[in-house]
């Protein structure tokens, strides 16, 4: 299960709205080894595409450092799907860098954004529940 603070969740979805019509991406951070995202780091999509994303490497470096300074670490990555269902694409699976991460997709296929989270371990995709903390 992935838990997000209300602020991290709102920031993640807001960033995905802001990037439309392009895909957005960013990183989630929390206590090491946990499944609780306390912070959302908005990152640039250097692919500048509505179909693919590449997290701006310098934004990743800064997020990683900031998370560490707060005693946290990056625990996952999110990106948006502008028109398709919130399910990992073959590219998402092929390039998933860390089996301990949570892979979050925010889909704008429908009127209301849909948020889903997955674990991707050795090419196997497993969906997990997403819980947003009460404010």
């Amino acid at each position, binding site marked *: 299960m992935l838990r997000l603070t209300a602020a991290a969740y709102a920031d993640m979805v807001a960033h995905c709205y802001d990037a439309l019509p392009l895909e957005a991406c960013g990183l989630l951070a929390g206590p090491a080894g946990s499944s609780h995202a306390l912070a959302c780091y908005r990152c640039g999509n250097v692919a500048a595409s509505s179909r693919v994303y590449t997290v701006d490497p*310098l934004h990743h470096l800064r997020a990683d450092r900031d998370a*560490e300074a707060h005693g946290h670490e*990056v625990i996952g990555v999110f990106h948006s799907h502008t028109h398709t269902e919130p399910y990992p694409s073959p590219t998402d699976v092929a390039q998933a860098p860390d089996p301990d991460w949570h892979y979050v997709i925010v889909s704008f296929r429908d009127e209301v954004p849909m948020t889903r989270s997955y674990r991707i371990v050795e090419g196997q995709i497993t969906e997990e529940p997403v819980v947003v903390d009460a404010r």
Partner: protein
Amino acid sequence: MPVDVRLPTVLRQYAGGQSTVKANGTTVREVLDDLVLQFPQLQGQVVTEEGALHKFVNVYVDDDDIRYLDKLDTLLSGAETISILPAVAGG
């Protein structure tokens, strides 16, 4: 003088769980070679058998991506921090 090398979470299991380790070298390549001497399981994780940087790995000297410096031959003074991070991408 050894430099600090920050490891991504996915590689820490090969370095006794440490997030930052020290390694010696006057270039990034020498530092990464020293890292493999200390932690043999890191062999092939950052640098390919052919001696090139892996496509899905980014290496920084302080704030600078080594691809925009002299790549693995980037010179170090000993005061820098090297960060290794996975390239994060998808569709």
